[in-house]
Every structure is written in C-alpha cells, then in structure tokens.
C-alpha cells in the first residue's frame, strides 16, 4: 500500500506543480507581449490592407 500512496502522492504533486507553474507564467508571456499589443497590430494590418 505504501508503494501506491507514494506513486499517487508524487504524481499528483508533480502534476499540480506543473499546472500551477504553467498557469502562473501566463502573465509575462501573454499580457505583456501578446494580448495588449495584438489590438493595435490587427488595426494597423487592417488599415494597410496587408493580408497574411
């Protein structure tokens, strides 16, 4: 039973650590460089008529 408990505990710990780190990292990746600027980017593209 000790083996089962260790496997369950370590896996849940690792999975939640990965999830928390991944979710926590979204702000510097998304807000600063993507979300805020995207609006301006799309408008500029639309005005210039450039098609990607």
């Amino acid at each position, binding site marked *: *039973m*000790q*083996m*089962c408990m*260790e*496997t*369950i505990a*370590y*896996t*849940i710990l*690792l*999975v*939640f650590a*990965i*999830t928390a*780190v*991944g*979710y926590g*990292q*979204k702000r510097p*990746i*998304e807000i600063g*460089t*993507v*979300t805020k*600027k*995207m609006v*301006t*980017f799309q408008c*500029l593209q639309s005005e210039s008529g450039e098609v*990607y």
Partner: protein
Amino acid sequence: MGVIAVWFGIACAVMMVVITQVTGPWIRRTGAKTVGEFLGHIFGKKSGIMISSVNAALGIAMTCLEVETIAVTLSFLTGWEYTICAVIGGILAMLYVLLAGMKEIAWLNLINAIVMYVALIVVFICLCFELPGGWDAVQASVEANPDTAWFTSIFGNSALIIGFAIPNALGASLFHGMAQTGYQPVATAKSNKEVKKSLWYAGPINGCFCIIPALIGLAAFSIVAYRDAGSMMMTPAMIIDLLPKPVVALLAAGFLGVDLSSFAVMALAPATCISHDMYTLYKPNASERTKTKMSRVLIIVIGIISILICNFQPAPVEMVNWIFSFGVPVFVMAVIGIWWKRSEKAAVITFILSWIAVCVWSTFGLQNYLGWTNFNVNYISLIFALAAGVITTAVLPGKKGLFVGRKRA
C-alpha cells in the same frame, strides 16, 4: 516498465500547459481555424499547406492507433477476434463522430472522462480487497527480483527517465502545441480566458490519468500466472479473474468511451485540415456547409483507412513518439517565426532536413543499428530543428517576426 509509466500522464500535463497557456491563445488571436492557416500567416501559404498535409497524415496515423485501442477493448469485452473487433469498432467510431455535432462530442468527452475515472477508482478499491496478499504482496514480489525492483518507484530508473519520460513530455508538448490535434478543442472554446482557465481541469485530469492503470499493470505483472499471458493481455486476464462482473463492465465501458472520444478528436483534426486548407485550393469560394460535408466524407475515408491498416502497426509508444517527432521542427520554426524572423525558405529547409533525420533515425532503423535505444527520436528531431532553424533563419532573408511588430506598435 512499472509505475514509471505515470510519466506519460505527467508529460500530458506539460502538454496541456503549452496548448492552453502558450500556443492555443497565440493561434486563436490570429483568427486561424487550423494550424496550417496559422503557419500560413507566419511563413506564407506554401509552407502552411505543407504543414497541413503532414499534420493531416499524422492525424490519420493517430486515428489508426485509436482504432487499435477500440479493437482491443471490444475484443476484451466480447472475446471476438481482433480483426472483427477492429471493423466493428471502426464503424462505431465513425458513427460516433458523424451522428454528433462538435458540442455533443465535447459533452460526451467530459462524460466519458468521468466514467473512466470512476471506473478506475472502483477497480483500484476492489483490487485492494481482491489481490492475493494485497498491494504489499505486489510490492514484495516485484522488489524481490533485483531486475524489477525499480518498478515500484516513479523515479526508479534514470535511463528510462531520459529515454522515455523526458522525450514523451518534449514530443507531446511540441507536437500537440503546434498541431491540429491539440488546437482543435482550443479552437472551439468561447474565449481565450476560457482556454487558459481550462488548464486547471485539463492538466490534472490528463496528468493523473495514468496512476491507476500503471498500478493495475504492475499488480498483474507481479502475479506469475497473469504475467505469462503476455504484456498485452496480462492486465485484462487479471481483471476478469479477480473482479466482479459489474466492475469489469464499468471499466470496459469507460475505456470504450474514452477510446471513442479520442477517435473523434483525432479524426476531426485531419478532416478539418484537408477540408479547410487543401480543398479550398481547388474551390477557394467553398461555403462552410460544403466544407462540413467534405469533413464528414473524410471522416468515413479516414475510418476505413484506420480499419484496413490497424493490423500492421508497430508498438503504440514507439509509433506515438515517431508521430510526435514530425511536429518538433514545426513548433521550433513557429516560435522563431513569431518572435524573431520569418523566412519561408528557412522553414521549408528546416522541416525537410528534420523529417529526413527522423526517417533515417527511426523509420529506416539507424537507432537500432547503432544500439542507441535511449536516444529517442524526439531528441534527434529537436537537435536538427534547432540547428537548421537557427542557421537558415540567420542566413536567409526574411520579414520580422509575426508578433515582433506588435511590440513596436
């Protein structure tokens, strides 16, 4: 392999982080319906179509694997021959996708996942009472042999961590992070906020999924009578022998449901790639209705192909890693094209060089010839993609990265 198999689930948690927090929101913001369309935005139409074609082929390969798992589950349920189960399972899977819409499939996927989890927990609890000597006997039996003593620890074997756990996380994250199979559920979400929040259930649900199957597999391995049935059949043999019939039925239903859900996602991805990225080359003004019809026809074609070749496939883990390795250069070049520089020539050269390396290493057997069994094909693909991608992008002319302009705006 022992409980180290849980790393396949942990790899899925890493994959969900990449899909829901990084690449999914990137692709959604450009308004692209397919990854091919998104890569077309970055590098140009030709490379976008090239990626869509490869993604469609790889999606079909994944669908073949799903038909294989459906056939094994049906065979376990009925005792019928594997090939007959593949035909019936393939037809069932096609009907499952064709008769339902996207919303129904999304809800069914959720229900199937819940049934699967409940079934696995019930099986685990039953095994606590039914296993001869309980879980302590399983541990004692496996640890008695020095060759298998490490089976009881998820950190037990460093060679497998390097050759199995890390490349699985790497391949799954990079492949699904920039493939239609990973983007398909993200594309149907209401908003980016919803996609990001979904990590809190997608990560743990996928990440913890392998715990109980790994423990059940180890229990079957620890009992010589079941171990003799072979790696594929020892767990079903133990379950049928030890557990009450209603529990066996619940587990089989859970597995079948999850298999059908996976088939739906895997079949929809290549069908969408072909109907949106390739069919429109011949009929640029095709309506959404025509494309949907086309997707439905394609699902039937993909289902038939999957049934026809499901008897000729290699071991699932090897095949999955081989499929993943084709997506690695796509991810590397997408990141370069978004944040540094866009050169279609550099992208095409990198894709072709990396894919040739994958074929030489894995498909044509250089890895086995050299005896480098732990040097996973995903490592080869990543090394070639990074080297070729950085060098060709630096040398060849190109436009600034797709998102670089936004920083300056």
